[in-house]
């Protein structure tokens, strides 16, 4: 049931996104801001993720694997 609810939520969001009006390149000034990046501070994002990763049982991140453990 949890999976069903997540799938429905995903579908609603995706359908909503498909209905948007195209944004012209000269209208994207705000989107280019540093604080609109997915991870504005990659070093801190890496430190956060490493701390959480070492204490939790589930990764679920998007991206390439690598690195080591450094956990207890």
């Amino acid at each position, binding site marked *: 049931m949890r999976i069903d609810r997540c799938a429905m939520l995903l579908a609603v969001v995706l359908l909503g996104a498909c209905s948007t009006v195209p944004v012209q390149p000269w209208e994207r000034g705000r989107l280019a801001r540093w604080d609109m990046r997915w991870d504005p501070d990659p070093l801190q994002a890496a430190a956060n993720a490493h701390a959480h990763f070492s*204490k939790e049982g589930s990764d679920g991140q998007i991206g390439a694997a690598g690195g080591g453990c450094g956990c207890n």
Partner: protein
Amino acid sequence: MTMARTISPSLAALVGAAAALTHGAAHAQSAPEGDHVGYRYNVYGEDAFDGAAIGSTQRYEVFSQQFQLGTHVAGGALDVSATHEVMSGSSPWYVLPGADGRPIQVLSGATIREHRSELRAAYTAGAGTASSTTISASYSQERDYRATALGFERSRPLGAALTLGYGASLSHDIVQPTDAVLYDRIHHAEKNTASAFGSLAWVLDRNSVLQAGVQLNHGDGYLSDPYKLVSVGSDILPDTRPGARTEGAALLRYRRAFAHPDGALHLDYRYAQDSWGIVSHTVDVGWYQRLPGGWQLVPALRYYSQAAARFYAPFFAPGEHRFFSSDYRLGTFGALSGGVNVRKRIARWDFSIGVERYHAATDYALGGSDAAVPGVVSYTRGFVGVDYDFD
């Protein structure tokens, strides 16, 4: 590693790769980055153990330094980062049933200082353009643990508002536990992890973007923790987990810029489920508030909940068990965390400082839980950092 985790892709490199991917995936929102360097000093300290326990109560501390260099080389962008960690303290070892049936956590002796070093490099062709390709490599080494990983990522536009991102990676880890003879641990073990992922990013309007992604991870080899033991009846046996694990995850990320107040909202949701039975939900909310004078204030909240692996229990009754673990990281629990960062821009310099408080408990799990998961950790982290842009 002092106590190995179950499946090994390190998120330090992984998140760096995700950042590289999403720069491409949302190319419309990111100007090409110039040459820059960055440094962070991080401090991590766990709370004292508050349950019934035997052994050293000196909990874990980690001091880490991160360095980053980004520069343009041969028409592309090269990003190199290095991390060095120093770790010490005691860890949950195994759990004994108390006289009243309540679990008693046995903690290991406090370790001497352990070190971990990691180097990662990523090269992106077409960085900052509509179509980019990134290759990455990383290497991490501890006294008893080595990990090598390679990654490939690609992004390309699918129309004016949509960008496709996809990639794959491989990781090979080697564990050679310390005191293997003394404690009858496995002497040498290896594991491999393969990941594939894809994402779609939409420019919804002039103020907001949305990304949806999926990831599949598969690990095989030695996925147990060589340092952990399990109480099975009157025996104390090594932690024993399946030799393969497959995990699927879905991610939604939303960013929205506001003019009044001048800031940006970050919303992330992540769902993950694996073949061991662990199901997790993670919600991250952040607000990037711009302030006069080059200041920025970033409060953030995070909620995490996971359901236990099928073979987790604090201790086991006598009998035939194929797999068993009492590692709290495989139990049912939830965690609430909150933090705040402050940044100050002065000319080409960025100075930053931040703190995070992380509190985990079994009754924070989604739907509540009264499961016995001794060893669940709460901690406080802080950092200071500086960045410099050459352009």
